[in-house]
C-alpha cells in the first residue's frame, strides 16, 4: 500500500514569487508520481507525472517537479507564480508493479497567489 503526505495545507505567496509545494510518499514498491491541480468547482487536471527516466519532470503552466528516491519526495516548483495559479494542488502515488493503476492522493495544498 502507498500513502502521501503533503506537508503544507496552505501556501500563500505574492505574484511573481517562486513557490514550492512539498510532497512525501511512502511505499514498499516502486512508484509512479503525479501532481494534479483543482480549480474551484472543477475536476482535477494533470500537471505532470513521473514514470521513469529523468528525475526532473516538466509539466504544464510552467510547473516542474523533482523525484528524489532517497528522500521519498516529489516536490512541485514554479519560479514565478501568477494570480491564475491560485488553486488546490494534489500529489498522488501509484504502485508501478501492478496493473490496476490505482491512485492514492494526499490531502492537498491550497496555493493562494496574492497581488
Amino acid at each position, binding site marked *: 500500500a502507498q500513502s502521501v503526505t503533503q506537508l503544507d495545507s496552505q501556501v500563500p505567496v505574492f505574484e511573481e514569487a517562486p513557490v514550492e509545494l512539498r510532497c512525501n510518499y511512502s511505499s514498499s514498491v516502486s512508484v*509512479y508520481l503525479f501532481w494534479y491541480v483543482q480549480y474551484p468547482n*472543477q475536476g*482535477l487536471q494533470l500537471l505532470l507525472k513521473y*514514470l521513469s527516466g529523468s528525475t526532473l519532470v516538466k509539466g504544464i503552466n510552467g510547473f516542474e517537479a523533482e523525484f528524489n528516491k532517497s528522500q521519498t519526495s516529489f516536490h512541485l516548483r514554479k519560479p514565478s507564480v501568477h494570480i491564475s495559479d491560485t488553486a488546490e494542488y494534489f500529489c498522488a502515488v*501509484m504502485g508501478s508493479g501492478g496493473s*490496476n493503476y490505482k491512485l492514492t*492522493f494526499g490531502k*492537498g495544498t491550497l496555493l493562494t497567489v496574492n497581488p
Partner: protein
Amino acid sequence: EAGVAQSPRYKIIEKRQSVAFWCNPISGHATLYWYQQILGQGPKLLIQFQNNGVVDDSQLPKDRFSAERLKGVDSTLKIQPAKLEDSAVYLCASSTKYEQYFGPGTRLTVT
C-alpha cells in the same frame, strides 16, 4: 476530444433519501473510477471498473453504496439511504493506463 461528463453537477437531498450520479467516460477508455472527495481532503477511491468488471471496491460502503457500468461505457453510482457524512464531491475519472482524466464532479449535500 470530449472529456469525462458527469451529471448532475449539484444535488441536495435529505438524509435517508436515495440519489444517483451518472458518468460518461472518454471514448475508448476501458478503466473508470469513482472517487469521493470530502471538503478539505484529497479524493478517495470508491470503486474501479475495467470495462464492465469491478477491479477494486474495497473502500465502497456496500451497505449503502452501489455502482454499475453497463456495457463497459457509462456508469452510475447510487447511495441509498444517504447519511449526513456522505456530503462530498463525487468525481468520476477514466483512463487507458497511467493518466486519469477527471470529470467536473457532482457536489452532494445531505441535510
